């Protein structure tokens, strides 16, 4: 794990403007994409858009992490 990145993440999490924070909703379509990712079925061309969506959605990141950990 990169502890420097953790410091930066914690800082931004504490001080980012409220409007810039996560929307925290995992839609059924997004859930399907996350499961495809975890199963190794995501296309490289889909990855950029999905990544942007994930960076704006903390709950989706958590869900993907759980799936990748085998949950």
């Amino acid at each position, binding site marked *: *794990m990169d502890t420097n*990145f953790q410091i930066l993440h914690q800082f931004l999490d*504490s001080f*980012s403007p409220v409007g810039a924070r996560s929307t925290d909703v995992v839609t059924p379509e997004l859930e399907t994409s996350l499961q495809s990712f975890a199963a190794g079925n995501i296309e490289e061309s889909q990855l950029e858009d999905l990544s942007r969506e994930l960076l704006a959605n903390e709950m989706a990141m958590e869900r993907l992490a759980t799936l*990748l950990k085998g949950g």
Partner: protein
Amino acid sequence: MANELDLELVHDALAGDTAACAKIGGDEMCGWIQAVLVKRGASPTEAKDLTADVFGDCFGRLGDRPPLLKAYNGVGPLRPFLCRAALNRLIDLKRRQRFQGSLPSRSYEDAPTDEFDLLEGESDPASDDNLVNLLRDALIHAFEQCNARDLMLMRLVSIYGVRQESVAHALGWSQSKVSRAIVGVMAQIRASTIEELQKADPWLELDWTDFLGLCRNSTEFLVGISDQKH
């Protein structure tokens, strides 16, 4: 708590203990803060004046604000707490100097705002922290410059604890490719952040280690969160 001695010293000073006050405002602490300010871009005179201001604020001698020391929560050591306060004042001073002798030239009748309106307000303790705003804006800018995929992978691995091997397997990559992606994104964050800081405040001397330390201290002192890695 890791900084119990500092917290006790501050409590004693606020209660009027002259020995505690003398220890906090003594030559050693003053010299250290002045040296930090000079290292960050202050002139020796500015460093001396700002340090005196900070120690005045510590005990509420200046203005009608509560003593600065009342904000000390003991989550981090006292020295970096006072350093943050001094650095905030230095940023404020340098930004005010930028406006001296160059008043906005636009017509006040036509313009709803001018440059002074764009300076930080005083209403919210977090929003009027010059240092936090400077660090945050540089960091947000840097994150925006990053490749979204690589940044997402960095978050999966560093924040959510997903193994690089699992990410590599899902993407059909080698583990070294995942590793290169997250090392690369960190290097880009570092370079873009320092570049943005230089654009915002060219006088400010901050290296990456300083930046990380200030981010950590800001979270500790303003939010009360510690990563316990001093």
